[in-house]
C-alpha cells in the first residue's frame, strides 16, 4: 500500500548506472548479503566448508561460485557474498554484516582490463590476474576490492560512501579510453 510515507531503499549506485561507453559496460551488482568472516584460531575453514560448501580463500583468491562466493578481503579475513552466514560460523569467526556498506559494480567488455590499468596499481592482465583472482588495492584514490569474474569482466567493491566517486573515476577512464579508439 504505497503512500507518501512509504520509504523505498535505494542501491548505492542508484541513478548512476548502468553506463555503456566504448566497448565496456558498467553495471551495479547485487551480491546479496555481505558478511566479513574473520577467523578465530582454528575451525573457521571447516565451518565455512560445512555451512556453505566453499573453502576459505587463500590471499588474492576467491572460492565458491556466482551467487555464493568467498572473496579474500584482507589479512585473515574473507567476505562471504551471497548467502546469509550460517549460525555455526559464529563459533569460529567474527562475523560482521556489511551488506549496506559496499558499492558493488561489474565492469565488463573488451577494454575492461585497459580501463582498470588507468586506475589500479596492480597488473590485472589476464596472464597475471586470472578468473577467481582478487586483490585489495586502490582504484584511483579509493581503497577497493577487485575480482576477475570472467575473461573480460571484473567485480569491483568500494565503500558505499564513495559510490559516486567510484562511478565517476570508472566512467572517466572508460570515456578517455573510448575516445582514443
Amino acid at each position, binding site marked *: 500500500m504505497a503512500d507518501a510515507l512509504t520509504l523505498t531503499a535505494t542501491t548505492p549506485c542508484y541513478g548512476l548506472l548502468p553506463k555503456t561507453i566504448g566497448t565496456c559496460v558498467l553495471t551495479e551488482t547485487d551480491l546479496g548479503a555481505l558478511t566479513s568472516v574473520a577467523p578465530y584460531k582454528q575451525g573457521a575453514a571447516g565451518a565455512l566448508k560445512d555451512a556453505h560448501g566453499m573453502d576459505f580463500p587463500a590471499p588474492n583468491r576467491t572460492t565458491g561460485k556466482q551467487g555464493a562466493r568467498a572473496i579474500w578481503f*584482507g*589479512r585473515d579475513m574473507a567476505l562471504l557474498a551471497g548467502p546469509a552466514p550460517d549460525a555455526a560460523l559464529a563459533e569460529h569467526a567474527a562475523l560482521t554484516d556489511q551488506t549496506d556498506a559496499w558499492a558493488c559494480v561489474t565492469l565488463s567488455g573488451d577494454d575492461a582490463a585497459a580501463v582498470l590499468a588507468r586506475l589500479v*596499481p596492480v597488473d590485472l592482465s589476464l596472464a597475471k590476474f586470472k578468473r577467481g583472482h582478487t*586483490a*585489495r*588495492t586502490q582504484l584511483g584514490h579509493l*581503497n577497493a576490492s577487485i575480482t576477475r569474474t570472467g575473461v573480460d569482466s571484473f567485480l569491483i567493491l568500494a565503500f558505499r560512501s564513495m559510490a559516486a566517486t567510484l562511478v565517476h573515476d570508472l566512467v572517466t577512464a572508460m570515456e578517455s579510453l573510448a575516445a582514443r579508439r
Partner: protein
Amino acid sequence: MRLPCPICGDRDRREFYYQGAAVALSRPAPDADAAAWEDYVHLRENQPGDLDELWSHDAGCGAWLVVTRNTVTHAVSGAKLASEATR
C-alpha cells in the same frame, strides 16, 4: 618503488602508509629505567644504509610490515610481518 608484502606480493608504494624506523618493536619493559625510556623515545642512530622500517599495507591486506630499506639507494631488501618480527 614497490614493496614485497609477504601476504599480497609486490605492490606499489602508494598502497602503503609509512610509519618510520621500526623502533616501536623494541619498546622497553614498563619498569625499565629512565635512561632506557629516554633512549627509546628520543635517541636515534640515523646512520645511512639499511634500516628496518614499519610500513602499513593499508590499501591492501592491512598488515603492518617490517621493511628493510637502504636509505641511501632506496633498495628494498626484504619485508616480513611485524607480528612475526616481534616474536
